[in-house]
């Protein structure tokens, strides 16, 4: 019985969810800090490209949805703290690659080496990728275990839906 493997006591689960909410709010974006950031068209366009690339690479490498989502939050958090000069497309590419690699290291069991993440236009040296990973880690102050909506989905499905456990593969 699968529900035996989850936290059995609903009180404990409620407590978990509360802790998760607190953490999500603490690590999340603080809009008052972001207001000064000028989001110009270049950034918007580059961000869309990056998201498209992350989603595509996620599915081709067989990563979970959580991993893709996490990579995108790293990407956004990074840009909310550090600016990338206009027209530096390679830097955006490198950033998306580092974010996906870091998300995979947090979430996946088989983590391919970053050089397996193929990029169409640029070919980065592994040393450069590692430097970028470290830059992202430092910029995000190593707070990489962000809470994603995926952590709440099963709880909400169960609470809203007659207290039956959802099928295991609702999200994976």
């Amino acid at each position, binding site marked *: 019985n699968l*529900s035996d493997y989850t936290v059995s006591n609903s009180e404990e689960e409620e407590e978990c969810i509360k802790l998760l909410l607190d953490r999500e709010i603490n690590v999340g974006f603080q809009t008052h800090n972001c207001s000064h950031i000028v989001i110009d068209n270049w950034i918007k366009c580059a961000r869309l490209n990056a998201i498209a690339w992350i989603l595509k690479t996620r599915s081709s490498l067989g990563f979970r949805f959580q991993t893709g989502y996490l990579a995108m939050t790293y990407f956004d958090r990074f840009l909310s703290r550090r600016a990338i000069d206009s027209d530096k497309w390679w830097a955006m590419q490198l950033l998306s690659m580092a974010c996906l690699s*870091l998300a995979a290291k947090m979430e996946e069991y088989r983590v391919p080496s970053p050089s397996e993440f193929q990029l169409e236009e640029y070919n980065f040296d592994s040393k450069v*990728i590692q430097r970028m990973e470290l830059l992202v880690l430092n910029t995000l102050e190593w707070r990489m*275990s962000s809470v994603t909506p995926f952590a709440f989905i099963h709880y909400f499905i169960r609470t809203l839906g007659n207290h039956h456990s959802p099928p295991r593969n609702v999200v994976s």
Partner: protein
Amino acid sequence: MEKLLNWQYKLGKVIGIGAYGIVHRGLNLETNQIVAIKRFYTFDCKNGVPYTTIREISMLIEMYHINIVKLLDVISNTKNEWYIIFEYLDLDLEKYMYIMHQILSGVMYCHKHRIMHQDLTPDNLLIDLNASVVKIADFGMARAFDFPLRAYSPEVVTIWYKAPEILLGSPVYSTAIDVWSVGCIFAKMLMRQNLFAGASKNEHLRKIFSIMGTPNERTWPGVTSLPYYPAGLPEYYPEVISIIFASIFFYFASQEMLCMNPARRISARRALGHAYFKKKKRKEKKEKKMTILDPIEKKKKKMMMMMILDSVSFTFVVVVVMLTDY
């Protein structure tokens, strides 16, 4: 040789060597605080920053609990070398018996925060001898989990502390694996040797079964269809562990923390609420008063007495049970 790490920290002698790095004693020159400094082996560029480093730092950075080792700082230098600064703790687990309470509350804290440690072994538990506090360390194998728990990599946890569901190749496992490891550590503390110590996975399983009994569909529904459930194994019956080790203390551990069926294994939270620990807590308070006057020796004596008392009372219980049975 002591050398300066940067303007703030001085690197002292090596106090531990692990799979991913070396731990030094260190000094914070600003505060004069003694610290532990974990120096990572040079990263293999091909794979970037190792996932163990990322997980360890990112999990510890968000944990604040007296029984979890405290991460103080992460620093790097221009040569791309990375160091984690931890609070300094003495590395000896064997001296204390009531540390179980502390270990369990640390484990419970992790589980409450959706973190499975996955590699609880005696060398990942550190002790502050002055304050008599145990801290859980080494989160390199730890991971966050979500509901419901999905298949996790089976190759975690040092084999001697591995739960049977992992050894049997169960596709799903849970926080119960940490409780099993704690049960094994608990047994080791009492016996000063490993309760189950097989050289290979199969031998290890056989050892577990020979003491805890071969699991079957009745005691653990679904066990016979697990991938590595060994065929043609002798039907061992559970040994009366209490007779082997003669202690109620251990009996509690073996029955509930070392329950083979992960679904029935006690949770860290429930184990903490166990009558045994309630009793323990009171003793702890008394002992704290004692330590001021007389440190380790008296404690040892008292523990020996407790063990003897436990075994005496247990033998008494066994005799009574036997008498009523026959």
